[in-house]
């Protein structure tokens, strides 16, 4: 499955140049497949010490005392850090990315199991861990609140008694859309379809856990932090603000990152403690958390309790949507999301459908669980939104006796309606939803499949066909609407072409496996005609790259990719002037084809981009600055709106509730595909994560607030063995406002696929009257649904 054409239907560059549309092999894989990547845990510095964190065994308790004397006495232990010590330096608390506060090391209470209580710095990682067992903490346990419903109930114990003016466990309240118009539409509806469901708490669980090596030079005050960060520039600014360190003395380096998925967007206590320890001790300090620490304490995702309703008229047209969310935020409100939007971009919940009214109410509650609410491979709660609307739409079709595909077709936003203004304020840039859906249905042979389903039912076999026709919103900002802690969501690219025609591209974003070193080189190759293999892409070092907000929410290609195209074009215009100088022609008389300028009408009179680069340093035009480099800061005019249709076919074992995916078809439209192979890889990864969410993956808690799902035997990450085989295809509807017509694609499949899998199982049971099973669709839940439906 490869793309061979861009929007114009042909490739602009030959394979030697490898511009847009070529499945260039990933440059970064040379080192990765040789095991020669360089991750935070690979960093070794002279005199480096090791840190381990003591975490709370209980979910909610007052700390009466902490006795560190035995730990401190253990040979090899250099220091034991507690909240009290951090408080002396005003570092016991830090801001979250949602403007709340979070404890770095607990001083008053612990508020979730796994919370940071103390840290040991030792000469050896084993010693640091041995010493954890020698710290004795006296806890006075408090009742644990393990659900947002419990948190909001009258008389619930107050979790955030540290916050002035906080009288209850409400973390935020937010709404979007027009309530009156929506209520009126509901009053006039012929039919109302509703769904109540929970999108369970999950965890991005990157294979590399979080960690840092903090290296503070006591003499110069230079602070270098090697850190698992998806957003090194933003993190540097946060460090400057939190610790009051001069920003020019802080250098954050994100070396190779072993997966992020949103988990490496927040600033974690461990980074702060390691840095404070290095500052106090004057030696480098390494902290790398364990798998369990990553799962129980770092940014979780989802955990939305959702109610949704659709108002329909008698012809099956949607009139309005109403949803109400109660989110479980854990002990600290730490969603990573744009400031204005307290429920992220959940209000994109109107989906791919055209109707005039919608109203969204979202409330979040503090609970005694780990904080987070990170955008796990999604653009700020778009996954929850897409899940809600695609489940609702499928149920609506059953309830009015229409085929789910035809119901969607009837209600889709039509191609001629773009740019489309949604009732909650989004402006969808481009789309052709029905074409993508028909393509997916064609691949699976939908009509034949429905017949087969009917025949199977007659034999007592349960086959289900589910679909999702999702629309995403990715690539924040524009800076008018989108910022993180006030930092506007632009991004940047700095390009320098060296005398021999080789180039270095520096970006403010940071790959965690997405293939930036290849994709962004291809954009330069497309625009400047320099072979992609001659372009080095550098990211992740705040001293050596231009400012940017980082990589998450599918924003790198929409924002940094656009910046890359723009700076390449700027340099091409300068190159044109140099070429004119070399060819002794007027710049206006030159034509461009990738890699060379030639005099209009006489192609034999030409210079290559490499000739031009050399001349930029050896023979520049008299009226031009020497050199060939520049930087571009790109503030996107709008988000991009990738879409597609996923179709899943399952068979359910009626006796046990087990279910199997027989087919999974994904037709994606992300606009112009820069590297089709990498796009396919991104989609397959997301489809796998969607499969995980639908089948198995969740983090749950017992009544005491103990985390169930604290290792990979309990928190299940699918491997190639159990993952279905994916059948991929595409349509191409370019983004009209993006310089190369591309939309983000890193998350489409995580966002769109969970509903498709779940809808397939529901479809298998729909004739029994089943309309909901909460994710994950564990066999016992499916079995119970069948039992309850059949009595």
């Amino acid at each position: 499955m490869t793309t061979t054409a861009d929007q114009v239907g042909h490739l602009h560059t030959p394979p030697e140049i490898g511009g847009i549309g070529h499945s260039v092999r990933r440059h970064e894989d040379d080192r990765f497949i040789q095991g020669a990547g360089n991750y935070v845990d690979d960093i070794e510095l002279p005199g480096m010490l090791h840190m381990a964190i003591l975490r709370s065994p209980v979910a909610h308790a007052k700390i009466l005392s902490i006795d560190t004397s035995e730990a401190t006495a253990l040979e090899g232990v250099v220091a034991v850090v507690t909240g009290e010590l951090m408080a002396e330096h005003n570092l016991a608390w830090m801001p979250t990315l949602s403007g709340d506060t979070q404890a770095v090391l607990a001083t008053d209470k612990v508020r979730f199991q796994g919370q940071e209580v103390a840290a040991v710095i030792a000469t050896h990682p084993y010693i640091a861990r041995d010493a954890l067992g020698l710290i004795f903490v006296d806890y006075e346990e408090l009742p644990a609140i393990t659900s947002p419903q419990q948190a909001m109930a009258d008389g619930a114990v107050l979790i955030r008694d540290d916050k002035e003016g906080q009288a209850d466990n409400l973390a935020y309240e937010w709404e979007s859309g027009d309530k009156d118009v929506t209520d009126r539409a509901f009053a006039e509806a012929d039919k109302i379809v509703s769904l109540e469901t929970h999108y369970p708490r999950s965890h991005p669980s990157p294979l590399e856990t979080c960690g840092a090596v903090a290296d503070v030079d006591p003499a110069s005050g230079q602070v270098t932090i090697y850190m698992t960060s998806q957003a090194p520039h933003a993190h540097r600014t946060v460090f400057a603000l939190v610790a009051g360190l001069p920003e020019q003395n802080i250098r954050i380096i994100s070396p190779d990152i072993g997966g992020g998925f949103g988990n490496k967007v927040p600033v974690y206590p461990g980074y702060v403690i390691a840095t404070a320890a290095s500052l106090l001790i004057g030696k480098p300090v390494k902290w790398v958390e364990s798998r369990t620490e990553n799962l129980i304490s770092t940014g979780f995702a989802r955990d939305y309790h959702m109610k949704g309703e659709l108002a329909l008229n008698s012809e099956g047209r949607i009139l309005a949507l109403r949803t109400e969310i109660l989110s479980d935020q854990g002990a600290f409100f730490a969603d990573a999301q744009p400031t204005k939007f307290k429920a992220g971009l959940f209000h994109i919940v109107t989906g791919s459908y055209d109707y005039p009214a919608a109203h969204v109410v979202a409330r979040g509650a503090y609970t005694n669980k780990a904080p987070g609410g990170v955008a796990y491979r999604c653009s700020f709660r778009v996954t929850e939104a897409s899940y809600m609307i695609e489940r609702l739409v499928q149920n609506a079709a059953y309830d009015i006796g229409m085929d789910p595909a035809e119901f969607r077709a009837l209600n889709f936003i039509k191609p001629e309606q773009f740019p489309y203004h949604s009732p909650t304020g989004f402006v969808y840039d481009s789309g052709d939803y029905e074409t993508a859906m028909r393509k997916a249905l064609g691949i699976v042979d939908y009509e034949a499949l429905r017949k087969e389903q009917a025949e199977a039912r007659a034999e007592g076999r349960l086959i289900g066909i589910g679909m999702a026709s999702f629309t995403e919103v990715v690539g924040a900002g524009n800076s008018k609407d989108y910022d993180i802690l006030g930092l506007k969501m632009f991004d940047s690219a700095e390009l320098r072409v060296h005398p021999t025609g080789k180039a270095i591209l520096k970006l403010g974003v940071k790959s965690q496996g997405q293939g930036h070193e290849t994709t962004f080189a291809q954009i330069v190759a497309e625009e400047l005609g320099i072979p992609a293999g001659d372009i080095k892409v550098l990211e992740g070092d705040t001293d050596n790259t231009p400012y940017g907000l980082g990589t998450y929410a599918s924003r790198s290609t929409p924002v940094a990719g656009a910046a890359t195209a723009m700076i390449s074009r700027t340099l091409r215009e300068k190159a044109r002037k140099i070429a004119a100088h070399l060819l002794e022609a007027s710049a206006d008389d030159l034509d461009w084809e990738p890699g060379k300028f030639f005099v209009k009408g006489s192609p034999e009179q030409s210079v290559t981009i490499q000739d031009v680069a050399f001349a930029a340093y050896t023979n520049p035009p008299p009226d031009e600055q020497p050199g060939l480099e520049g930087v571009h800061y790109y503030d996107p005019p709008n988000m991009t709106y990738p879409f597609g249709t996923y179709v899943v076919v399952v068979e359910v074992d009626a006796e046990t509730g087990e279910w199997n995916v027989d087919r999974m078809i994904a037709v994606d439209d992300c606009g112009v595909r820069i590297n089709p192979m990498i796009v396919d890889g991104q989609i397959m990864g997301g489809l796998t994560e969607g499969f995980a969410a639908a089948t198995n993956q969740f983090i749950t808690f017992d009544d005491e607030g103990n985390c169930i799902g604290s290792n990979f035997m309990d928190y299940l990450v699918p491997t190639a063995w159990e993952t279905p085989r994916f059948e991929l295809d595409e349509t191409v509807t370019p983004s009209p406002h993006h310089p190369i017509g591309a939309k983000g694609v890193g998350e489409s499949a995580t966002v769109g696929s969970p509903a498709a899998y779940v809808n397939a199982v529901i479809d298998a049971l729909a004739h029994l009257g089943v309309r909901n099973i909460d994710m994950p669709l564990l066999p016992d839940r499916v079995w119970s649904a069948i039992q309850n439906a059949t009595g």
Partner: protein
Amino acid sequence: MYPPAFNYSAPTSVEEVLATLAKEGEGARVLAGGQSLIPMMKLRLASPSYLVDINDVDGLDYITDVNGHVAIGALVRHNDIVKSELIGSTNHAMTDAAPWIADPIVRNRGTVCGSIAHCDPEGDWNSVMLAARAEVVAQSAAGERVIPIDDFIVDFFTNSLEPGEIVKEVRVPKYTGRGGGAYVKLERKIGDYATVGVATQLELGDDGKIAKAGIAMTAVNSKNTRAAAAEQVLVGETPSDELFREAGNAAAQASEPETNVRGTEEWKREVVSVYTRRGLETALAQAQAQA
């Protein structure tokens, strides 16, 4: 993750292994495939003071056809069972179960005897061994003794070895008549322990009636458990759908599953019943296929 400190040696003979165990006493543990012990140490759930690694001992990786049984040595890995033709032709339940154990990486390293010794109620081998009525050969500096599997499995994570004893081999009886077996396992993903597992074994008499039956369950009791009443349902009877259903229900009654993150008690019982029936169907088909 970092285990606490421990001492270690890797003797090359069984005698040395036994002598070291005797010398190091209570805190010493045998290290076989390490696929259960090492994870427990990493999580600091186990902290042995001394590990006696048996992997360098020669001659413990045998699968031998002995009179009436197949002997499986202490260093036979799960994957050796996957590949063994001798097992393939003598015990269908073992052949069935082997590829369900963990994943290929763990199977290359983990041992059958280590798994049996470990007595994890979610481990698969002990159910198969119960269904087959296997015997464990225990050896110590003092000598050898043969322990029926029912007596070997004491409780969860508890076997009946005496201090200083190791499992030298396990003996799996061969069918005496036309036999067959199956292992049916419900797992959440590859490499997962069983949510429910059922081992079944049947032997048919010349009259086509069931002469011997073995049924045992994984992960639904505090240890791998024989469904004795279900076996009783079968012995002496002519196989039928009805009979197998009855056996399934009897097995479900003998199970004591807990509601947990994998599913409810009620559902697990149902799965035991269905899986027992399905396993017996497979076992019967295999037995009938033999001349």
